[in-house]
């Protein structure tokens, strides 16, 4: 089976932090104080851009869990699917922006169809049935992706408008990462407003609190569920499309992504939207600074953080149920 090593992830993502320019100060003490600021700024922005990607992953999973009480094991595969869809969209249309729209739409549609066709039949069964059916979907979808796109990692070009470098306090920083931070913030605010202000958002919140009551009021709860499953998968795919220029689309993505997504949802509290945002930022900072200061333990740091949170608050930071 395709067991891809995780180890290259940190090095690849945070390559910038390894360059001498961003290195720790070497000269006199006064310049050390002067140099630490740009370094911190760059690392924090790195972490925030990473947090944006993690947020796309986590928020979809947590929305699905909040409404449907099910864990979507295939979430990481939808993220990977998004990256490959983004690659194809760029190849066919020549535009990265088309990929940003098409990728989530296709993945979301397939997700909703999966809910309609299979998951809907399982609502009377216990939680583990969902976990296992979606695990089956992981195998099937992963294999289909391998058949369609092949086994090689596919590089997606950063769009021209975002390919440059800006200097922040004399430190070079890729524009694309700033774009990621911005898009993460936009999507976070967008989802928040959607949940708070729109009628569909109201229905979603109501369904998560008491599905039977919403059903009794004449709302097609099943439709809400299909919709939210599609939206969750679409968000994961959006993360995949955005990650593709950084990581390139590869078959190893799904495994990393699903673990990250689970960790975020558990740290933030299952079903909590602000929790997933908080957890994504926390995890990203741990990953980025962990990779810099303790390269050997960076992989473990995220899990240790999760264990710590669970021992202190078994329901997650902002979760309701323990």
């Amino acid at each position, binding site marked *: *089976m*395709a*067991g891809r*090593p*995780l*180890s290259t992830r940190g090095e690849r993502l945070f390559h910038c932090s390894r360059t001498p320019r961003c290195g720790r100060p070497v000269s006199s003490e006064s310049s050390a104080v002067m140099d630490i600021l740009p370094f911190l700024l760059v690392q924090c922005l790195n972490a925030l851009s990473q947090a944006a990607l993690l947020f796309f992953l986590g928020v979809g999973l947590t929305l699905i*869990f909040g409404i449907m009480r099910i*864990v979507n*094991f295939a979430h990481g595969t939808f993220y990977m699917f998004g990256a490959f869809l983004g690659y194809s969209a760029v190849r066919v249309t020549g535009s990265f922006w088309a990929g940003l729209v098409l990728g989530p739409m296709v993945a979301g549609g397939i997700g909703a169809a999966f809910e309609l066709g*299979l998951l809907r*039949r*399982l609502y009377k*069964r*216990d*939680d*583990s*049935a969902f*976990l*296992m*059916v979606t*695990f*089956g*979907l*992981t*195998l*099937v979808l*992963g*294999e*289909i992706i*391998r*058949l369609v796109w092949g086994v090689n990692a596919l590089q997606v070009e950063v769009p021209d408008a975002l390919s440059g470098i800006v200097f922040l306090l004399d430190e070079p920083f890729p524009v694309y990462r700033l774009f990621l931070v911005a898009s993460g913030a936009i999507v976070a605010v967008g989802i928040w407003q959607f949940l708070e202000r729109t009628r569909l958002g109201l229905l979603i919140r109501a369904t998560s609190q008491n599905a039977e009551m919403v059903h009794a009021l004449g709302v097609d709860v099943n439709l809400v569920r299909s919709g939210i499953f599609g939206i969750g998968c679409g968000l994961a795919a959006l993360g995949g499309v955005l990650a593709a220029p950084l990581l390139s689309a590869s078959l190893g993505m799904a*495994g990393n992504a*699903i*673990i990250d997504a*689970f*960790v975020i*949802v*558990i740290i933030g509290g*299952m079903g909590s939207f602000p929790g997933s945002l908080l957890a994504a930022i926390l995890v990203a900072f741990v990953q980025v600074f962990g990779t810099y200061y303790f390269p*050997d*333990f960076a*992989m*473990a740091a995220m*899990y*240790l953080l*999760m*264990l710590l949170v*669970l*021992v202190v608050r*078994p*329901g997650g930071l902002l979760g309701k149920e323990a």
Partner: protein
Amino acid sequence: MTVQERHPSNKKIPLAFLCVAVVLALAPLGLPLFAMTLLTEALILGLLAMSLDLMVGYTRLISFGHAAAYGLGAYASGYLLLHTPLALPFAVLAASVLAGVVAIGVAWVCTLTKGVSFSMLTLAFAQLLYAVAFKWTSVTGASDGLAGIPRTSGPFGVTVFQTKNGYYYLVLVCLLGAYLFCRSLVGSPFGAVLRGIRENEAKTLSLGYNTRLYKIAVVAVSFALGGLAGALYSPFAGFANTELVFWLFSGQVLIMVIVGGQGTLIGPILGAAFFMLLEHVLSQYTESWALFFGLIFIGFVMFAPQGIWGLLTRRARV
């Protein structure tokens, strides 16, 4: 749960068990060496799946990190065989005990939560172990893993385990012994409490049982047996690598349990054999056997939650 509860009568070892044991013991006489290799691996995986069944089928602790037990056992026995003069059966036993002891710590943390969070925590622990296996080069060999693990000669000059068939008997004895152990365990008052936790933990708790301790105990036993399977695997294959600890493998073991029939002990062993056979047959015809495997698995969860064993026994009763 729709799983049929048909517990073997506690005292007697059924005739069927003896028949199967005899047939398996005679297998090396009739099967070519190649088939024996497959069968040995199937039995090892069967042991692993059966150990997971104690958690999944009897206690409803859905572990998504059972590869951790397997990997721990595999690495530990591999390391002991490579770097110490310990005889093979003792190395295997020590690795199994290690897995059980580690499991107590893991379970202590994991049982802080319930349901889905428990599954995710076991997954996280397995991944933590995966990370350790990847980075602790001096012990685990990092991404290369441990290679060239020998089947050393046994204690008191016994060399029978060095041959393929001799090793098969070691595996067979371990599996049969573990099965009898598990069978008496689930038939005991301890097993009754486990089933109580599965059906209604709050009620079991209110009856005065410290359910958390029971859960920790069953995870420890399950990990020790899973570790035994892993410990048997690495001298059999001659290597131990990070793939044995990877989350995908944990999922595969869970598939074996579900497809075989959870809460039956025998079912998961059949599931493991079915898995091996299917993988072997499908990979002869198509490269994308995982696709069909996923579809078959989805089919089982949707339409036959009682698994192969459930289907077989239901057919027999009609």
